[in-house]
């Protein structure tokens, strides 16, 4: 199967920091994959996702999505992707529905279709009861769910999720997993970063571990466990590969 996302020779340095964050990443993500990106703090996960979404400039190398090069404000790629960032990237003084409506309008969804889609979103993540609450008045779990829905309002082909369940209770987390599995089963490609190894084991069809700007493992969770027979779970594999040393 042809790669939906192709990353070749990717290097990234930030101005004022001589040490590159990404030191040569080569990666292919196929259509319909539930792709997990793991790594310790400051490994470069968020940088890699931001580059794939066109938010950061590439220092060296190339990233292609659907055969098109990322960068230069490529509208065709932007229409394909949905980003769910780590932080609650919503307007706190707007209600849940108002936020959904705003982002839906920005994706050019027509009024009737948008209202229908908003209803669907509220239903899918059980947000109906909180639809008219301002984000600033919502609990952490509701904010997370609303944050997720705003990135998915336009039903993107590719979803980038950067630690979407950070600080969420088990119930909300479970609801989010179910929804993502459903989307993935319908053909949506998901690129997901997390520090929760259970998420990785239960959700991902393939896992890539990056550390210190390099890919150090790239396989399915089952294969990784096979390759490290002394490890009981993916968490132990992760520690074995990245070490016990604390990171910045």
């Amino acid at each position: 199967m042809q790669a939906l996302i192709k990353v070749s020779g990717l290097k990234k340095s930030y101005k004022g920091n001589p040490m590159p964050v990404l030191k040569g990443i080569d990666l292919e993500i196929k259509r319909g994959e539930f792709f997990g990106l793991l790594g310790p703090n400051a490994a470069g996960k968020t940088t890699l996702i931001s580059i794939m979404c066109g938010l950061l400039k590439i220092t060296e190398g190339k990233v292609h999505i659907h055969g098109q090069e990322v960068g230069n404000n490529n509208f065709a790629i932007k229409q394909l992707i949905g980003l769910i960032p780590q932080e609650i990237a919503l307007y706190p003084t707007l209600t849940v529905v108002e936020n959904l409506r705003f982002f839906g309008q920005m994706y050019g969804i027509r009024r009737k279709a948008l209202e229908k889609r908003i209803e669907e979103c509220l239903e899918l993540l059980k947000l109906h009861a909180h639809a008219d609450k301002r984000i600033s008045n919502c609990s952490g779990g509701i904010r997370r769910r609303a944050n997720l829905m705003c990135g998915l309002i336009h039903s993107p082909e590719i979803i980038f999720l950067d630690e979407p369940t950070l600080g969420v209770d088990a119930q909300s987390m479970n609801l989010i997993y179910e929804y993502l599995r459903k989307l993935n089963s319908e053909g949506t490609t998901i690129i997901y970063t997390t520090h929760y190894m259970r998420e990785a084991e239960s959700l991902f069809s393939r896992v890539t571990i990056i550390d210190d700007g390099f890919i150090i493992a790239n396989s399915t969770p089952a294969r990784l466990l096979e390759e490290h027979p002394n490890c009981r779970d993916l968490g132990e594999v992760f520690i074995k590969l990245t070490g016990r040393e604390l990171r910045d």
Partner: protein
Amino acid sequence: MRGFWGTVIKEMLLLIRDIPGLILLFAMPMVLILVITLSQENAYESISDNKIQLLFIDNDRKELGLTIEKGLNESGYFDIIKTFDNKEISVEKANELISSGAYQVGIIVPEGSTLLAEDRADAIIRFSRDSTQIINRNNTPLGDIQLSFDPAIRDSYKNSVTASLKRLIQAAEFQILLNRFFVLLPDELNEQAKVPIKRELSRQLGLMEEEFNRELRVRMGEYAPEDLKIEAPDRNPEIDLKEDFGKNLEFDFKTDSENLVRVREVYAKNQEAVLEPTLVQNNVPAFALFAMFFIVIPLAGSMLTERSQGTYNRLRTLPVTYLTILGGKTLVYVIVCLTQLGIMILTGIHIIPAISDLPALEMGDSYFSIFIAAISCAFAAIGFGLLVGTMSSSQSQAGMFGSFMVVILAILGGIFLPVYMMPEPLRYLSMISPLRWGIDSFLDLFVRNGDLVTIWDNILRLNLFFVVALILALRNFVKRK
């Protein structure tokens, strides 16, 4: 107590690591003080140090005009301008230059003013000889000097300049009066001396006649005729002489009603001008504009909130142009600015006259031009807000920088102190302030009765400023690390 000191240390560290914030914190107040002090320098020094540019049109070219010009030169307060574009300034040109605000003050001495003033002086000097002179004096026309002012000039400034000019004109009047007095004195003395001398001669002749009669009677004795009588003199000739001269040598030209020249103060107007300059006409547009530029705080604040909350990154992944995102903001804030202006105008029209003795704001009839000026000012203010919003790295930085800059641009723009009262370097510097372009446009429309043609250059500047600010803001907005 640990918590307290921990907080103190944390805040100190946050502060000293925010270098731009520190620069703003310390450098901006310094700049503010400098700008305010320099711009108000003239207000305190009145009109003593910085010369007032004054258009001087002397169509008389005789004593009155020459004396005034000499006085203006010697006073050191005025910079006399008699030519424009290497051509002598006509009355029409002076009116045009002053009504457009290019210059604030002009003095026009019409042809024949000196002759009229001299005639008037002659009439005053001779007035007490007989009652017909008083009639003549009242019928003698006065010389006519015109002080022409920019309609947008501040009253305090106008009064100060007028007082100085009137003193100079009075000096010129006195000079003419004195000259005429000495010209007329010999004739007057000759004329006035005739009466007492005749009377004295007559009296002396009378005395001689008496003496002769007495001598004749003595000599004729009993032959003397019955009607030959002696009438003794009943007056002291010396006193009579003084009284006669004193009565005819009274000169009184000290009262106001006996000025040689009438000074008319007028506001230079273009032909269709109907609006009268008032404090309201000046202050409403000035402070509306000032308020408009304070849009920088909420606008920049909203952009920085987006950035800190992550919505900025989300916006950048949306399939819309950045111009769409900034354009949407611009439209909303244009509406805010126009609403602000509308409220200020309504305040000027309804509230100010209701709560004070000040007249209501008059807007003239150039509503379309006012709308264009307002929208251009709004664009410039928003452009500035977008620029500050995309340049600053924190809300506090944007708030401080934005408000300081607005105050400085307002001072330079003449919101608090008219530009013509500032020292020359600041007057030039004021040309880069969008608030000056805005206030000049509004004053042209509200006070000088201008139209779109009058304000086109400032409208162009305001819109160009917006375009440049928007381009820079877009550049900052799309700049990826």
